[in-house]
């Protein structure tokens, strides 16, 4: 059972004025829910757990664009740090994929994998899928069933965030940074219509801001 840092539903977080937040977002955010430093410390630990389980064999780290990109870069930096500072190390290659999910009339989710090398590159390897947030879990479940067809040695999923939501299919990733409430979160890896990527802490978006940055 994966351990995770639980952010409870009634977690108040911190006042914006106690952290450095870009001036242009000061009116748009309510509270800082997860400070950047905490994200980094938790990511550091995830890297160690991943190496403990997957470090015996060539790892292919699969980044799910675009949201997973920031977490992917930071997570891999910590894994590389472990790799270059011990007597044992494991080869680590990377790849990038995009997932297009669409549901048909029967509301069964289909997922199309775009980009990435030939999936045959995953055969016999330890595959680590890196995602920013898992909500219903259905996209991830579909991706996993697609990947088993290439016969990897093992497949694990690392997600920075898992949302506590009644819409969840029950799927839980193997490595979880934080479990968060079903609120509108932005910052670090999470954007809202491309905004807030330049915010390093994870914050709750205010109601007015949802309207302001609407497409």
């Amino acid at each position, binding site marked *: 059972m994966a351990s995770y840092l639980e952010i409870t539903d009634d977690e108040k977080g911190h006042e914006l004025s106690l952290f450095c937040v870009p001036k242009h977002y000061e009116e748009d955010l309510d509270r800082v829910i997860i400070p950047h430093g905490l994200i980094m410390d938790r990511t550091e630990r995830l890297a160690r757990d991943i190496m403990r389980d997957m470090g015996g064999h060539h790892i292919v780290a699969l980044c799910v664009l675009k949201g997973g*990109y920031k977490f992917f870069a930071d997570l891999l930096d910590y894994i590389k740090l472990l*790799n270059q500072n011990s007597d044992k190390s*494991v*080869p680590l290659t990377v*790849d990038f994929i995009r997932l297009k999910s669409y549901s048909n009339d029967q509301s069964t989710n289909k997922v199309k994998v775009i*980009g990435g090398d030939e999936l045959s590159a995953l055969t016999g390897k330890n595959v680590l899928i890196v995602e920013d947030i898992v909500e219903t879990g259905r996209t991830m479940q579909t991706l996993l069933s697609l990947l088993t067809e290439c016969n990897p040695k093992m497949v694990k999923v690392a997600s920075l965030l898992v949302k506590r939501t009644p819409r969840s299919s029950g799927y839980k990733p193997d490595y979880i940074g934080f479990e968060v409430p079903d609120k509108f979160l932005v910052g670090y890896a999470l954007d809202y219509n491309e905004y807030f*990527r330049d915010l390093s802490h994870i914050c709750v978006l205010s109601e007015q801001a949802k309207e302001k940055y609407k497409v």
Partner: protein
Amino acid sequence: MAEDSPVKIVKQDKGIVIEDDWPGYSLDLFTYPEHYHGDIESVYIPHGVIMDRIECLARNILEDIGNHDVIALCVLKGGYKFCADLVESIKVLSRSTNRTLTMRVEFIRLKSYLNDQSTEDLHIIGPEDLSMLRGKNVLIVEAIVDTGKTMKALLKHVETFQPKRIGVAGLLVKRVPNGVGRLPDYVGFVIPNRFVVGYALDYNEYFRDLNHICVISERGKVKYKL
């Protein structure tokens, strides 16, 4: 007495030049993954120096196009580290200045190397539709400019989507005899015509997990050959 008027010196940052005979640093002075033991010759550009240089490029970029919306077009896979660190550096710097740079990142994938030779063929892999670049300030972020053919083809491709302005940031620019096309606007290092790996630059997918930029050894070239 006439007052001396200040002399304005406009310095053009053309990148740190690494000479042809630079041997690099000895491996035993740095950390690197054990599985590359014997596969690399020397540490050419240490990770920390890369980071310091990126900080400077970030400052130059902010000075030139701060207060504008910029879309960074990251050239995968080699550009992913440079792009992540450059964007992060820009974010950190803009927090402590008055300039706000709203930067978003898009990704494009190019394939143009076989083993250690640049090929004539340029494959631009997804997304086909770069129409989000129309009317925007685009900053292409590329890890290395070698013959220049890839950059030339990429620029031509991007121009068809009619961005407002295109800038190019290249971490490494190689000194090659038959280079074509324009030099990047922001250059990290100008290096000799040697095959380098590390900091997301690969040799047949290997060495991306090495944080320093290094020179691959002959043994490494054979070991990881396709």
